[in-house]
């Protein structure tokens, strides 16, 4: 499909650039619907790759790129399912997220995440699957999973280890604090920091530049310099699912969902 308009995301191809827009209010929380539509997208990616040289993933939602996994949906599932069934659903969800992000990571297209505002958890992991991250200066990056008794489960740890020094990975994971775009650029993860609202425009200009290069060479270079740590990714899934079975996670989810003081995204 060359274009698709879904409830959580949409895509188009124009002038050799695939654009995947995330647009589910309030902040692109990635639940079952988003994952289903993302799965559809990667199913189309092979065909789209024949007609394009770049993929840009961005959000048209004001609050940010994505706040990550839909925790309210997960909590509701926890409340309404038998425990074993719930844990099976969690694993299925995680494996699906991995399939999606792995497909983007392995894509022959040069991939760009154009981000702003909140880039948290699964949203951060989606951005990490891309070759380049262009952030506007409102972007904040965070892995808050430890606050829920979890680790990032959608490939964040192996990809951070691939791209960053271990000290910064420890800071991100063990403090659960959010980092501004400039700091993440200084760390080498963000390619360009641009003015507020300019990330998509700059991503498009970058994608136009990429069209000047031989595709086979670019794809070969990308495969060579950007290995995908499949074994570690599988290990992350297993550790994540094991942690998810612990009571701390239910407590963390409940605290997030029941938070009445409008501060669920701040550390407590």
């Amino acid at each position, binding site marked *: 499909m060359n274009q698709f308009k879904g409830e959580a995301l949409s895509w188009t191809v124009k002038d050799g650039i695939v654009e995947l827009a995330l647009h589910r209010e*309030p*902040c692109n929380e990635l639940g079952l619907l988003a994952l289903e539509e993302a799965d559809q997208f990667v199913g189309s990616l092979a065909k789209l790759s024949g007609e394009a040289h770049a993929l840009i993933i961005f959000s048209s939602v004001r*609050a*940010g790129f994505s*706040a990550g996994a839909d925790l309210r949906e997960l909590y509701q599932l926890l409340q309404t399912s038998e425990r074993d069934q719930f844990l099976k659903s969690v694993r299925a969800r995680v494996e699906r997220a991995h399939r999606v992000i792995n497909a983007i990571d392995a894509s022959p297209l040069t991939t760009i995440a154009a981000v702003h*505002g*909140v880039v948290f958890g699964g949203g951060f992991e989606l951005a990490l699957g891309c070759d380049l991250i262009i952030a506007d*200066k*409102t*972007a*904040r990056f*965070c892995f808050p999973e430890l606050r829920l008794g979890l680790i990032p489960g959608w490939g964040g740890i192996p990809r951070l280890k691939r791209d960053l020094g271990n000290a910064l990975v420890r800071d991100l994971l063990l*403090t*659960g*604090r*959010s980092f*501004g*775009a*400039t*700091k993440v650029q200084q760390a080498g993860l963000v390619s360009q920091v641009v003015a507020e609202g300019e990330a998509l425009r700059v991503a498009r200009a970058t994608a136009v530049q990429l069209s000047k290069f031989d595709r086979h060479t670019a794809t070969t270079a990308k495969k060579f310099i950007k290995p995908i740590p499949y074994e570690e990714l599988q290990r992350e899934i297993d550790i994540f699912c094991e942690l998810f079975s612990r009571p701390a996670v239910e407590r963390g989810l409940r605290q997030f969902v029941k938070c009445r*003081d*409008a*501060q*669920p*995204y*701040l*550390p*407590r």
Partner: protein
Amino acid sequence: MVMNSSDRTLEEILNLAAVHFRVPREKLQPDDDFFKTLGIDSLQTLDLLTKLENHFRVELPDYELQGVSDFRTLADRIRARL
């Protein structure tokens, strides 16, 4: 009136918050609860945090905002990083 550096930091924060959230400056007082006065949630607070980091050129871990809900205490946290 000559402001000392503490007052200057606080004044800059109040001005920044007023402009960013489009609230008249005179409606913001140093000891106001900024969540209530500005009517903001945690996502918008993170937005304010980014503005403050960029303006003062400091890094302010968001866990430093734990228990902070007024502008004066927020100014103390920022000054500790200058």
